[in-house]
């Protein structure tokens, strides 16, 4: 490619520096200060926010975020891998169409989907009315409700990443494995699964990060009983406590930085991220 075209990328580097890197430093500074919102007139340097970190509610929120995100990732991985593998193996000619069908739910509004799921989890809803169920089956406000919501929302990302990785595996490798006497089960664990690890890694990151940091799903499906770290950050900024909010965001940023490093290791140019 013509070296002269480099000029197109340079403004983008500035844009990323201004909108992605600069605010990280602003948050880092805010985390060490006491200020009224964003006005720095009476601001002073303090470690007060760090004492807040020891608060029971914040520790629980962090613990819950990791717990829920891990459970969601594991469930999505098992189910998503299963779906991706079966679509990959299926004899349908038009696999693109099947994938589209799997992703299509992502195109209607996330909040509406959550609300609809939440209605299904209420003690009285249209389905219980039709099926004439009188007992209380409601799970809204509990851990399974939030996890079901997270899995159903973010699993498509896993399916897509794993499927992309599976499609790249050379079919002759599978034939070779069978020729050399592996059973189908061994073939899967010794050949296919290791080769699809790239997709598993990116898929897990794409599921783990939003489930850890989102605030809408726990807010509506947890009916206020369940606090994740996203909810605490949202509440902090809503109450104009920019300092605590910034500190928590910076901590979250370190987790994301870890994910970024993993991605740059397994996939140098971000090819499986889509």
């Amino acid at each position, binding site marked *: *490619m013509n070296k002269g*075209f480099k000029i197109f990328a340079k403004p983008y580097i500035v844009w990323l520096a201004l909108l*992605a890197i600069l605010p990280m430093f602003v948050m880092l500074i805010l985390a060490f200060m006491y200020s009224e919102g*964003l006005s720095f007139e009476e601001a002073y340097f303090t470690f007060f926010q760090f004492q807040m970190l020891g608060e029971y509610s914040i520790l629980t929120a962090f613990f819950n975020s990791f717990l829920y995100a891990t459970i969601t990732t594991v469930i999505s991985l098992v189910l998503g891998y299963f779906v991706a593998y079966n679509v990959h193996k299926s004899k349908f000619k038009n696999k693109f169409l099947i994938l589209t069908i799997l992703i299509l739910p992502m*195109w209607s509004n996330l909040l509406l989907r959550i609300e609809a799921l939440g209605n299904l989890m209420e003690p009285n809803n249209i389905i219980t009315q039709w099926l004439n169920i009188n007992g209380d089956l409601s799970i809204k406000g509990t851990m399974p409700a939030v996890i079901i919501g997270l899995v159903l929302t973010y699993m*498509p990302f896993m399916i897509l990443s794993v499927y992309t990785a599976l499609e790249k595996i050379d079919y002759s490798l599978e034939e070779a494995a069978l020729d050399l006497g592996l059973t189908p089960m061994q073939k899967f664990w010794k050949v296919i699964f290791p080769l699809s690890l790239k997709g598993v890694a990116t898929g897990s990151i794409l599921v783990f990060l*939003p489930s850890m940091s989102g605030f809408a799903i726990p807010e509506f499906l947890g009916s206020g009983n369940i606090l994740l770290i996203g909810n605490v950050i949202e509440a902090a900024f809503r109450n104009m406590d920019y300092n605590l909010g*910034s500190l928590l965001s910076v901590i979250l940023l370190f987790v994301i930085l870890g994910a970024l490093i993993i991605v740059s290791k397994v996939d*140098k140019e971000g090819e499986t991220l889509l």
Partner: protein
Amino acid sequence: MTKTYPRATLKEYGYKDYSVLKKIYKVFSIVAVILIVIGLYLSIIMLAIQSVNSSSSVTSFNSFTLKWYAEMFSVRSLKTAIQNTIVTSIIATILATMLGTLIAVGIYSFEKKKRQAIMLFNNIPLLNADIVTGISLMLVFSMLLPIFPYIFGPTTLIMAHLFFTLPYVILSVIPKLKETDPNLMDAALDLGVRPFKALRKVIVPAITAGIFSGMLLAFTMSIDDFVISYYTTGNGFDNLSIWIYGSMGRKSLTPSVYAFSTILTLVTMLTMVGYQWFQRKGRKVHVKR
């Protein structure tokens, strides 16, 4: 005197008969995949049911009606929210597609080491938690407040959408750039075409598929975004997600919004299926020729 031995069976050779197990597994996997797909569609199905319910309560079904479809735009605030969403998403998508393609070409012109470093930064908006991205942008835009007092609103919303959609376009264009013949550009230049014209006439046609898939992704992400928009829009400029969030908080969601969502789902579904059908037809005609 020859001794007759019984014939060795397949089992004695170490062959294990898995055919029954295989059949069971096959049925199981089909059922499981169908169940998972139904799970993914559960909320969409519920939305569709709620949109044809004559009662505006979501707990009981009265009778079938299409009145919410007819009244879709009668709620003023919903109508403006839908308009805002569509306008900002379209503007952001067009800008992201054009700029993203140019940026991708630019990034691709760098040597490999630098390119990977830029891609690492390019992944930040993609992997960053929505809430952190939203707050970061809000902080940057707030710092601009002394210079532009009225910046929060459509401008910041479009800029924010541009910020998180650009990486998607870039990520889908670069693999296509890698696939193009590196000699194409040189050939065009040798034939006396100016670099920019060569880019337009030679490179862009070669990477159209990547540009389109990037555009589709950008639009998808932009039209459904809630968290980032929530932090970067100004007072009184709501997009659909923010409007829904507000109404959900007040427990005053009108079924018209279910109707709008259902129509949107049906239209996208039909478009995708239709596109597939046309493509296959096109391919068949091509083969016949």
